[in-house]
């Protein structure tokens, strides 16, 4: 890969230049350097970056407006992404930490709060916001283009993707950015799965569930959202899935059950007819009871006809017709286990198992493989979100969540808006030779800059353990690269266009503690900075490497770690206010860590100390070199200050040129000096 990459880039570059000139409007084929598939939040976010960089791009959307998923979902029409408008802060970057819906742009007020002031905004607000985003930024979206087939062709000018829409028009592009989201309802096949209703089509009117016993498959947010809406009408609400409920406030994963949806836990634990169960869905059977001829009460039986029983595959008697899901009493678990939990029938079984990626439009030449995690519902992508085996095809947004599935926020707007930006930076470097934006800093300013990022940066805060700032040490200065995709660190130089010098690098990551603890218990926080590595809440961690870690090291990193074992590590102790700026607990330990990394004293000195060290050493400490020697020394502030100089210390002006004590020199210092010198006035 390493050796091929430059070649590949060259091809693509040549390709791009050539392609943009061979634009053929006839034949129904149009070429773009970049095709973005889908005008949802991820597609529009990428559109913004492409448009800002003045790239040749198009966003293709099969529906008539942006974010159409949100016209239907969530079914109960309340977004659970927080829209915290009041943070007490004016820092726009900081405020994005608590705005989970807005997209990134350079328009400071192009935020979701424009269309909704609610903490949990109504779902309709989101497509509305996205339309505003498209309009105000003038993004190029083509609606009503339903791409049904995507294939890749390899030509002399490089690899290209050909997209065919419903009218058999082709779009060709050098880079394909797939932001189609997840919208195909995820189904699990089991005996009787045809008797189950889907989240996508259930009634959202609670009255329709009056006095019904409901079994919900799944324990995610859509399952609980559904449960919550019918809680007041249904008689029983049972929820079943293979794993127990995971609470977002315990796992720090927003895809797990949010407290906003968890009323059923309350009614379950307070024993009010609702309940949670664990079982593998492919082991269960949903069935109707077979009539067994001994019916005496015809009418009553009719009533019961629609009821659904739960049984286990192992109790089924063999040689059943394939599509028959009727069971006999002997096939019900209650027949064998007298207190079996699910022995009573249900009026409805609802499937709320989430969504999967639509692989079906991809030709084998362009199809990214399925990921190993998330039960293959997502495409497998590299650490920089390029499809495995599909160079030039990138996956953005929710569909790219396989990188941080169940661990960070990459599947959600407030996370993927940053990974989209990272992908765009990869594109700029690879296809246009624009290195990742970076800030050149004096090494003595690094500590302040880190504290600034730690105090406000939203990307690493939301995409904790996935995106991190990379600081390239260069001796007296350093290069600060923001929000790099951590797992791609071995490829850093290629992807970012920045070289790592032999001074090494520091990676700044926000991370949670890895210990399972009592999350509301007394031991949940750590205040002592010397035990910062035991912090449980989100806190900054700095990794120092003398060289870039290799792929191998990355693979074998300590279990649970975002990065391989570094040369040195520094945890900044968690902070209740999430403001890491205390002089003793946060700043000084950080400085000592940085000093260790750069092997230089990074303390700040007053001008007088710099004066001394400048005269007694070949060079004063770095702070003095970069401040005092540049005539920007820091004077003691708490000195009495006289405007009018007390002349008479020395005879003043002489044409012969006798120097005068710098008349600006504060007189008070001379006085202060008098007492100091008295003891040392030797033989003069």
């Amino acid at each position: 890969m390493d050796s091929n990459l430059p070649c590949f880039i060259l091809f693509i570059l040549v390709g791009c230049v050539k392609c943009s000139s061979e634009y053929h409007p006839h034949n129904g084929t149009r070429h773009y350097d970049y095709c973005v598939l889908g005008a949802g939040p991820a597609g529009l976010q990428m559109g913004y970056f492409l448009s800002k960089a003045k790239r040749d791009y198009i966003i293709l959307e099969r529906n008539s407006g942006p974010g159409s998923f949100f016209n239907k979902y969530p079914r109960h029409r309340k977004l659970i992404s927080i829209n915290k408008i009041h943070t007490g802060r004016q820092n726009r970057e900081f405020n994005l930490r608590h705005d989970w819906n807005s997209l990134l742009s350079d328009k400071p007020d192009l935020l979701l709060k424009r269309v909704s002031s609610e903490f949990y905004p109504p779902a309709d607000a989101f497509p509305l916001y996205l339309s505003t985003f498209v309009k105000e930024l003038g993004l190029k979206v083509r609606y009503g283009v339903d791409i049904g087939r995507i294939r890749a062709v390899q030509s002399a000018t490089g690899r290209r993707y050909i997209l065919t829409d419903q009218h058999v028009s082709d779009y060709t592009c050098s880079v394909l950015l797939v932001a189609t989201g997840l919208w195909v309802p995820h189904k699990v096949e089991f005996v009787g799965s045809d008797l189950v209703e889907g989240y996508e089509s259930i009634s959202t009117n609670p009255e329709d569930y009056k006095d019904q016993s409901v079994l919900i498959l799944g324990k995610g947010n859509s399952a609980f959202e559904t449960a919550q809406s019918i809680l007041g009408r249904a008689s029983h609400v049972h929820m079943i899935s293979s794993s127990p409920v995971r609470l977002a406030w315990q796992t720090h994963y927003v895809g797990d059950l949010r407290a906003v949806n968890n009323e059923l836990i309350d009614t379950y634990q307070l024993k009010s007819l609702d309940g949670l169960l664990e079982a593998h869905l492919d082991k269960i059977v949903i069935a109707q009871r077979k009539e067994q001829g001994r019916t005496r009460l015809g009418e009553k039986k009719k009533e019961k006809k629609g009821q659904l029983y739960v049984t286990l595959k192992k109790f089924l008697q063999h040689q059943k017709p394939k599509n028959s899901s009727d069971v006999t009493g002997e096939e019900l678990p209650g027949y064998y286990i007298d207190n079996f939990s699910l022995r009573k029938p249900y009026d409805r079984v609802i499937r709320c198992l989430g969504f999967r990626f639509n692989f079906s439009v991809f030709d084998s030449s362009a199809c990214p493989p399925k990921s190993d995690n998330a039960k293959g519902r997502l495409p497998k992508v590299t650490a920089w979100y390029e499809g495995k085996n599909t160079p030039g095809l990138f996956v953005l947004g929710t569909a790219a969540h396989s990188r941080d599935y169940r661990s960070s926020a990459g599947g959600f707007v407030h996370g993927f808006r940053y990974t989209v930006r990272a992908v765009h930076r990869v594109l700029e470097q690879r296809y246009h030779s624009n290195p990742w934006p970076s800030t050149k800093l004096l090494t003595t300013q690094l500590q302040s800059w880190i504290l600034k990022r730690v105090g406000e940066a939203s990307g690493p805060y939301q995409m904790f353990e996935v995106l991190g700032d990379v600081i390239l040490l260069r001796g007296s200065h350093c290069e600060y690269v923001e929000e790099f995709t951590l797992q791609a660190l071995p490829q850093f130089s290629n992807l970012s266009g920045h070289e790592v010098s032999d001074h090494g690098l520091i990676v700044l990551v926000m991370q949670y503690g890895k210990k399972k603890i009592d999350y509301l218990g007394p031991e949940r926080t750590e205040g002592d900075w010397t035990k910062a590595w035991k912090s449980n809440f989100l806190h900054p961690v700095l990794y120092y490497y003398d060289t870039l870690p290799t792929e191998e090291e990355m693979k074998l990193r300590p279990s649970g770690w975002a990065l391989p074992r570094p040369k040195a590590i520094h945890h900044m102790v968690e902070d209740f206010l999430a403001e890491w700026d205390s002089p003793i607990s946060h700043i000084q330990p950080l400085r000592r860590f940085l000093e260790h990394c750069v092997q230089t004293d990074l303390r700040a000195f007053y001008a007088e100390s710099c004066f001394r060290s400048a005269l007694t050493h070949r060079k004063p400490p770095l702070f003095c070199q970069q401040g005092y020697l540049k005539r920007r020394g820091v004077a003691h502030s708490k000195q009495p200050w006289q405007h009018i100089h007390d002349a008479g210390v020395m005879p003043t002006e002489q044409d012969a040129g006798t120097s005068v004590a710098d008349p600006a020199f504060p007189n008070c210092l001379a006085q202060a000096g008098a007492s100091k010198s008295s003891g040392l006035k030797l033989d003069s």
Partner: protein
Amino acid sequence: MEKAARGKKDIVLGYVRSLGTQEHRSMMETAYVYGSKYQFILITGGPVLKHLGVNELSHSSRVWFLHCRVHSGFVIPMTCPLTLMRKPLSTLSLHSFLQLMEAPLVSEVYNDPSSVQPPQFPYQQTPQVFLFSRPTTAHLDLDTATTLAWRLRGLALLLLVHRQSPAVKTPDEYNAAYRLPEKSSEVKYLTLNDLDEVLELFTNQEREEEDEEEDEEEHSHFGHLDDEIAASVYENRGDLLDMDSITQLTSDNFHTAVAQSSLTVALFYLKWDAASMAFLSSFLDVAEGLTDSGVQMSAVDCGEWTDLCAAQPGSSRPIPFRPITAFPSVLLLRPQESAQHYRGMLGTEALHRFIMLSHPASPVLLSTQEEVTSFLQEVPHPKLAGYTPDRVLGLFETHRGAPLFTEAAKSLRGEVLTGLLTDGLAEKLAAEHSVDLPAVLVFPSWRTHAHPSALPVSNSAEELLSHINTALLHPLPELTVENLPSFLSLGKALLLLFVGEEEDEFGRRQNQVLVEEMRGVVELGGRRMEPYLACWIHLGRTPAGMSVLGSYLGSMPPLPALVLTHLPSRGEIYQYPPNMPIGAPSVLQWLQRIEDGTESAAGLLGEDSWPPAVKFYDFLKIMDMQEPNSAQQQTPEEEEEVDEKEVNMEEDVLEEATDSSSSSPTPNNNPHSEL
């Protein structure tokens, strides 16, 4: 120094880690009191420390007493015996330490130890050690006692008890005794086989104390700020800064605020940056002094207004500066102009002066003789009365030749007053100073207006600027904290004269004569002096110079002292023979000897590398200790094992088809979670 003092005075050598500390003060106060009795030497580092075996990274101050005075009856070895003060440095402890040094080395008594009085003032805090002497071995016993006394010096007082006295009741089996202060006046008796045992007794005790001290040090290493600026900001954390006197600039009000005033001075700061906060209070002082002056003093909290500081325009109007990446930064903003960076000292005085000097246009267009006179003689602002600014005049035939000069003048704004003359007036002034047009006349503050330096107009503004800056430099400067950087940047070796504070007119005149001699060196040396910058430091006005001198020579020499330092690519420091009068020819000869390599160095400059002063807190090491393997890279086999385990766990989930909510969670095994 030691050589000079041997036989005459004892030396008190103090090492303090930095000046201005409490310890430094204690040292100074004591020096003031005992100055006539002892030779005080103060060091803050340098080779002497190494010689004394002290790690320069060590944080505690130290005091040594060098017994250089001839003590009757004792032979003084080649170097003066040394006693280290064991207690932490304070005025009081130093005081009692010095008194202890005055105590007789060995006292002879004829009483039983139990009836010997406990030590009297001022030694009441000092343990006593008793040794016994028999008449037959009296001489030997005294020698032994003296040897031990030297080793115990500063720790305990030694008393030699003459057993022949009938008052001595101590049984013969004991050959030593001691009494500790405070713990009643009980005497403990011992039988020693070896003198080291006594020594051990006290050094052990001391070691215990030292351990405690180290613990404290360890503690302080975590709990206290070792950055002097951070520490002073932290000390004042209780004081609320009154920010009302300045305008808070924000992303929202920036453009309107800047448009409102002809000059806005904006401080860009970060709350967690100690230098920013230290300077903020100076900035507020300046603001207070500038109320109603028409200057808008303002500040930008870059922790809050991050986009403004990054120069990201929130609106269509451009931000007139580049992103701020160094803190604190001060910009001078004028409507419709790009911002000017303040590049001076971060202090009240310097900033105030800069703002005052940047009031007039740069350059000022001068069109009459009166304006020229006023430009050259008047202070631009009454608040600068008493201050003599540097001035530069550009003389051009027309305005056409002036852009280069105008550009240079712009960047000199605030530091130097610049004026522009054209046409007849320019010709007149050129003629007065016998230069041809175009020309630039530089009037440094240290010279009268009658004799400006004339510079040709250069090819570029940068070149012109550097010529102007060079012309402004004093040829024989008094180095101060503020001006040293300008002179160091010349990269020349420093021929540096240290003069003391004058007490009277006579002293003043003496110092002046010395400076005149230095001028003589420069003049007599001519081109030979080019690699050198002759300069001087007045220790009264620049007390920081004291420790510089001390560190150069390892001690404080008599003043005046002339040294040669900062030789290019060499660390040696040479001292002009202190007993030789400073005169131009002999200084030049001395310089020649140094060039020839026949002069030996008196000291060395410190290294140019500054390793971290304190070791960092190694979290990796602690993790490895407390949770072995948690921070270790995995081995490939381990990884597979983990996979297997996951598979196994999946297997038994089925059996949990009950409502037991206690079933163990299976990590990374949720096929049905939703996105």
